[in-house]
């Protein structure tokens, strides 16, 4: 299974290298990959149907419990088949749709990358590998939405989608870490065993909020739904594949996958029902006001996703069966509708439904495909959609609480979805053909066959539901629900309440379709609500955040070095003082201290005076001279306290520094008084606080015992190992000889720097004279 998942990535990388040779007629070769994978997964159907599970594990970071654990059960199966099956159709469709595009190789690279990540996502049993693949799908989606990278709107949509799904991914990761800590395992199957512990844990609520954050952003649930219509800037095959059939269902997959772990709790069920219900009604209404075909489809996709969340929220076995069937139904008809829209856009150059009509004369195979998809979407008997709709009504009617409201919401959504499906699948093809479209010709077989195939699939599964019920739907429900499930889907349920509701839905939907027309006026009317839409609010928040961070950056990084030093030192003082006065017993043990002798006192006083002069003087030369005196005083202190080498070095260096300073600076004017009294006092207080703190810390450290292990190692071995009697010298040139070599290198670099600065002076002078 690892090979199956990795093949997408391998192909993507291969395409980066050799892709340009495949741009011509060979581009359909890439579509062999999903086809092979589709048959690979197809062979497991009998064993999965019998209740078997496939499991394989590859170590990645075993010490942290992060491994490539792949687990193929019914739920993963249904998604794998969608990803590879629809993937194959999309690949061949795209090879014709984007024929001759300069970045065709790049496009297939992204698409393969996405397919690999999506397979990894649904096959991972490990929380963290699931998360990695989850993010990879967001990233590949970003590239695909922004595929027309010269269009600013496209780039903006891509960024918005990435920001939202990426933010959701962050929440999800936090949720997973929490889940691993509570459940004690990073394997989802093992977590099912400790579901009871997790549900009763005090962190259950934050945990599900975080997981919801990931799922709702990915699956475009209200109020995060607005990135999906924007994502329609991507080429149409991408919209069909990522933003309708597969990637946006990753959130649904996540919820379904975690139903046995986190579900069956009132928080879980009620949130999902409310959010899903709200999303489906809200966005289904949006479809009524749109005129762009892709926009209509986008909103109806969100409504369908809302329906799935809603069904998972109901959580009864009937609802889960309905969800599993609806995933399949929706993928078949919605991908078909998208592909049809793609052809219309490609051939006529417009997606405005108010302009389109009569295309059946020129695009007849697509008219058939569109009709099949629209009928399945409408839930007309004998289509797969009819079964899906029946199951949904059964689920809502049998739900324990508030069955009326739930059923009402489902009916309302279905009516509007039917309307949307008819607008997209049927309306462009009926009526009179306009003159401007009379020259439209049928595109290549590669473009009209996939939607037709999807439409026929919907019809086939509708008439023979036995093809999928035991083999695909049943294991999928089993994975979500546990226990025992016996499913047999029937075409005909007899006359009952569910059938009545179906008839009501279809009648109302048809009435809506025939009595109203999509128009620019309606769209305009809707745009009045734009300022309060979640989309706009988010953009405004983003703008405010940008303003705030700009202000924050400018006020902290104002370009004044002094200010940086001031902030850093103040912060350090606060931190040190807090730690020192809360964590340490201030105590000075003077008994261990050496006595103060007369000459030490003199040197100390001399040093204090020189420091005072350096700080206060107005003359550069005086300041430099005073600094030299400070250096010599330190030199004397080294002599007093048994450090002859240091004394010699300090003496030499100090002399050199003073000489250099004087040579370079003696021509400069005296100090100008730049700063006022107030800032001097402020800086003075800060400096004194800092100095005092350092003194105090030094004294506190002196109370501690000192570790002499290293010193005694050098002391005992200096002569025996390195044949030297001056231990400091031996350390520098022998034990740590390498460090000294590096130090010499640093000095050389500094010398080169000094030299080039001096050389440079001559050149610039020449320039200045010009």
């Amino acid at each position, binding site marked *: 299974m690892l090979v199956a998942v990795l093949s997408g990535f391998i192909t993507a990388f291969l395409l980066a290298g050799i892709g340009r040779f495949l741009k011509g007629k060979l581009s359909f070769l890439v579509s062999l990959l999903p086809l092979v994978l589709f048959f690979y997964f197809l062979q497991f159907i009998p064993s999965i149907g019998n209740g078997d599970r496939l499991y394989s594990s590859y170590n990645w970071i075993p010490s942290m419990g992060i491994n490539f654990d792949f687990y193929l059960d019914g739920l993963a199966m249904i998604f794998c088949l969608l990803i590879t099956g629809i993937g194959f159709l999309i690949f061949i469709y795209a090879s014709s749709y984007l024929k001759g595009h300069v970045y065709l190789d790049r496009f297939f690279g992204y698409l393969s990358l996405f397919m690999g990540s999506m397979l990894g996502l649904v096959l991972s049993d490990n929380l963290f590998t699931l998360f990695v693949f989850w993010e990879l799908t967001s990233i590949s989606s970003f590239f695909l939405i922004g595929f027309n990278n010269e269009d600013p709107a496209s780039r903006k949509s891509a960024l918005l989608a990435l920001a939202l799904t990426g933010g959701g991914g962050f929440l999800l990761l936090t949720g997973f870490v929490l889940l691993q800590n509570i459940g004690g395992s990073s394997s989802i199957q093992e977590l099912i065993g400790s579901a009871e512990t997790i549900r009763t844990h005090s962190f259950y609520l934050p945990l599900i909020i975080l997981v919801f954050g990931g799922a709702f952003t990915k699956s475009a649930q209200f109020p995060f739904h607005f990135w999906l219509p924007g994502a329609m800037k991507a080429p149409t095959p991408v919209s069909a594949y990522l933003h309708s059939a597969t990637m946006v269902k990753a959130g649904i997959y996540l919820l379904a996958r975690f139903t046995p772990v986190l579900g069956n709790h009132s928080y879980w069920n009620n949130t999902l029902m409310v959010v899903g219900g709200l999303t489906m009604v809200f966005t289904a209404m949006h479809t009524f006001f749109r005129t762009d075909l892709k926009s209509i489809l986008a909103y109806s996709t969100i409504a369908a996703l809302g329906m799935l969340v809603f069904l998972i929220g109901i959580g009864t076995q009937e609802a889960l069966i309905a969800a599993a069937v609806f995933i399949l139904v929706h993928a078949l008809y919605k991908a078909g509708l998208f592909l049809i829209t793609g052809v219309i856009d490609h051939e006529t150059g417009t997606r405005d439904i108010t302009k389109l009509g009569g295309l059946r004369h020129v695009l007849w195979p697509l008219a058939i495909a569109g009709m099949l998809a629209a009928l399945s979407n409408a839930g007309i008997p004998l289509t797969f959609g009819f079964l899906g709709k029946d199951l949904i009504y059964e689920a809502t009617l049998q739900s324990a609480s508030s069955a009326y409201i739930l059923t009402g919401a489902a009916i309302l959504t279905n009516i509007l979805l039917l309307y949307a499906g008819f607008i997209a699948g049927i309306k462009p093809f009926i009526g009179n053909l306009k003159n401007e479209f009379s020259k439209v010709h049928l595109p290549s077989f590669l473009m009209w066959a996939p939607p037709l195939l999807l439409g026929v699939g919907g019809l086939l599964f509708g008439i023979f539901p036995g093809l999928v019920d035991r083999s695909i739907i049943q294991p999928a429900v089993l994975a979500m629900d546990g226990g025992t499930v016996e499913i047999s889907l029937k075409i005909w349920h007899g006359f009952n309440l569910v059938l009545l509701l179906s008839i009501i839905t279809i009648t109302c939907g048809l009435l809506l379709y025939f009595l109203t027309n999509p128009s620019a006026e309606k769209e305009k009317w809707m745009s009045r609500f734009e300022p309060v839409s979640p989309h706009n609010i988010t953009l405004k928040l983003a703008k405010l955040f940008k303003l705030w961070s700009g202000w924050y950056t400018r006020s902290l990084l104002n370009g004044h070095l*002094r200010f940086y030093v001031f902030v850093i030192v103040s912060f350090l003082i606060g931190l040190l003082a807090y730690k020192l006065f809360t964590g340490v017993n201030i105590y000075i043990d003077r008994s261990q201290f050496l006595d103060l002798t007369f000459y030490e006192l003199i040197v100390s006083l001399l040093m204090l005076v020189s420091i005072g002069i350096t*700080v206060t003087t107005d003359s550069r030369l005086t300041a430099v001279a005073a600094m030299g005196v400070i250096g010599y005083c330190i030199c004397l202190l080294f002599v007093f*306290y*048994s450090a002859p080498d240091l004394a010699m070095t300090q003496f030499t260096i100090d002399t050199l*520094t003073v000489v250099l300073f004087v040579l370079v600076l003696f021509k400069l004017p005296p100090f100008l008084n730049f700063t006022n009294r107030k800032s001097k006092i402020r800086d003075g207080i800060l*400096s004194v606080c800092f100095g005092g703190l*350092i003194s105090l810390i030094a004294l506190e450290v002196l109370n501690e015992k000192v570790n002499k292990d290293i010193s005694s190692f050098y002391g005992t071995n200096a002569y025996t190992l390195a044949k030297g009697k001056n231990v400091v010298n031996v350390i520098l040139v022998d034990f740590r000889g390498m460090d000294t070599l590096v130090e010499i290198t640093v000095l050389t*670099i500094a*010398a080169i720097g000094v030299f080039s600065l001096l050389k440079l002076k001559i050149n610039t002078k020449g320039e200045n004279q010009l």
Partner: protein
Amino acid sequence: MELYLAILIGVLYAAGIFLMLRRSMVKLLLGLILLGNGANMLIFLLGRITKGKPPVIPENTSIFTDVYADPVPQALILTAIVISFGLQAFAITLLKRVYVVTGTDDLDKLNVTDDEDI
């Protein structure tokens, strides 16, 4: 004596920070040097000070027979002194260059690039 040394180190640090907060580049440099001296003294003090016992093995023996000053901080400080000289030499020449080019050593006048738009 440790007490006085600790105070002296504190004063070196305070003077260093104070000078670094001035607008003049020369003062900034002087502050940096004082701060470096303070840091050296701090390391020296914290390695414990010993009088009249340099870490040199006496004649005719191959190991120490008496107590001796800790050689490790001394080796460390020696390196630090030399390195800081490299830094100072570079900074002083740089300062001279900046003064020649811009005609000022006011740091506040140096925080804009030639292009005012940036």
